[in-house]
């Protein structure tokens, strides 16, 4: 904004002088070019999604034919969505897995965020013995392709514990998978809070848990939101573990079901319904997400 304030008066002045010699308004070619590129990129992003929306309104025959705009739309135009909606029962496999995904993702977000907030606090503002060792292990775990190296081990563990086909149990590896990043983010955010603030509260007799909940957490709000988003994105889209650990169709997640493919109007409508939660989260969280990244995800 400040750049606009600085340049605005000057350019107006210049324009005034130039108006006698040159045309008053010049087209800002550079800015126009930048917008053209950005709009093109947005079109690229939206193109496949628009295609799917169109597909979901085609008649059943047209939706599996080689056209973009159909000869005939379904009537009414939301018929495919109605079909998805009327199958809103738990014995319907789409909504069964949809529910499973929401269930597992919620568990992961809650457990992952609590775990990261507590640990991030301990590793930043408490005098935790062995702090450096904990941090070293967390950072180095980021560079190992853990998904690949732990896959077989997790399968054996869950088989031995009898957790195969237990949908809730997916949260265990999910929380673990984003633990390192989440803790490092929370630690970085807490570290930006001056030590004097919790210290003075401590002298006033606040317990460390109350300091965390009452002072640190509100100040580190952006970090919490970033951690929620990280956990959401991982749990909502994980595919490999969900298909290895869940043999039973009923206990699988939405990602695995939709990953199975297929095409046509009905599947397209399901697709749109399936991406709604993510887009809603995005529109609400976008502002904080940007802020949190600027605040300190990099200082970690």
């Amino acid at each position, binding site marked *: *904004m*400040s750049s*606009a304030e*600085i340049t605005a008066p000057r350019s107006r002045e210049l324009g005034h002088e130039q108006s006698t010699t040159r045309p008053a308004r010049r087209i800002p070619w550079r*800015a126009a070019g930048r917008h053209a*590129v950005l709009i093109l990129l*947005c079109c*690229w*992003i*939206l*193109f*496949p*999604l628009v*295609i*799917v929306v169109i597909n979901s309104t085609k008649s059943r025959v047209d939706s599996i034919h*080689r056209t*973009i705009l159909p000869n005939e739309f379904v009537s009414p135009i939301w018929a495919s969505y109605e079909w998805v909606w009327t199958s809103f029962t738990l014995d319907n496999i789409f909504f069964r897995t949809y529910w499973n995904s929401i269930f597992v993702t919620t568990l992961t977000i809650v457990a992952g965020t609590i*775990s990261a907030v507590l640990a991030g606090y301990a*590793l930043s503002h*408490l*005098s*935790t*013995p062995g702090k450096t060792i904990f941090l070293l292990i967390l950072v180095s*775990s980021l*560079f190992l*392709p*853990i*998904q*690949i*190296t*732990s*896959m*077989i*081990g*997790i*399968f*054996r*563990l869950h088989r031995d514990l009898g957790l195969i086909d237990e949908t809730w149990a997916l949260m*265990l590896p999910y929380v*673990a*998978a984003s633990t390192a990043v989440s803790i490092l983010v929370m630690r970085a955010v807490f570290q930006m809070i001056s030590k004097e603030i919790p210290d003075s509260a*401590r002298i006033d007799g606040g317990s*460390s848990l109350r300091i965390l909940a009452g002072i640190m957490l509100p100040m580190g709000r952006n970090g919490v939101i970033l951690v929620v988003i990280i956990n959401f994105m991982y749990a909502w*889209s994980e*595919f*490999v573990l969900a298909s290895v650990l869940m043999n039973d169709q009923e206990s699988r997640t939405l990602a*695995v079901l*939709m*990953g199975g493919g297929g095409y046509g109007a009905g599947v397209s409508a399901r*697709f749109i319904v399936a*991406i709604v939660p*993510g*887009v809603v989260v995005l*529109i609400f969280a*976008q*502002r904080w997400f*940007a802020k949190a*990244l600027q605040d300190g*995800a*990099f200082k970690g």
Partner: protein
Amino acid sequence: MGDTSVAEATATVATTPAATTRSGWWRTAKDMLSSYPYLLIAIFFFVGWQILPIYSSFRLSFTDDNFLDQNPPNFIGLQNYREVLGDQLFWQGIQRALIFTLVFLPGMIFIPMITAIFIDRVKNERVATLYRIILLIPAMIPSPLIFVLWLWMYNNYIGPINYILVDKLNLFTLATQPQWLQDPKLIFLSIAAMEWWWGLGYHTMFFLAGLATIPKDLPDAARVDGAGEWRMFWGVTVWRLLPILLVLMVVRFGSAMAVITEYLIMGGYDRTKNTYTWTVYMYDTAFNGGVQFRGYAAAIGWVGAIIMLAVVAVMFYIFRPRD
């Protein structure tokens, strides 16, 4: 709990003179009591579902464990590793993953960088937010759905891309149309383009965060001094973005080498396909059909991981801060 002392404990623990070791010990124990409960949940998840599984798959890689027989796995020493190192399919898988990474990395880093620089210049806050939201949409779609979406896009019959190229623009015929996911020359480019589509907004956010650290009056001052756009870019912007660029490069190298879901959904288990990389080979060996040699699969995973770590270490060495 007498927490007033905790504040300076970090400093004192390190500098406590030898004469007061007893109170130093006491203090450490007290610190542990007051801080480790906070770490308990994280340790439970991290040890239980990261460290233990990694350890168990490491131990497994020295055995002949498989799925079918019920016998306990036998320790066979380094035999799995010897076999992996001589396994043509494994090395081919590593090579394929490397080629994909080389195709994938430049677009994943530079397209978002340019985009961020452009968005950063947009004066109107609402328009900038709109750009950001649109570009971020793919980041919030579950990855398997993205792969299915692009399976539709690249489809030879119902896919809109080939429909436009063949039926609308008449650039190809049905016989010569690009086989996006079947042609071995095209498949990595097709998958990489999908990844760029997915990662554009997400990575742009990181570069935008970096650009936000440039003081707003710096470019103006430079412009008043007569610096052109290009001098500005090379003199100021690039240096601010370089650390982010290097971090993303290392992180994305890691994820590109270890890609698996994309290949499973878009390529399947066809060994002749380029998508049959070392990760798919491991998954195929461990969980698919037949005998399921878990021990051998674990060894594949570990050799691949070690190769990746070696490359990451080299990248760190090259990118190390030199001041």
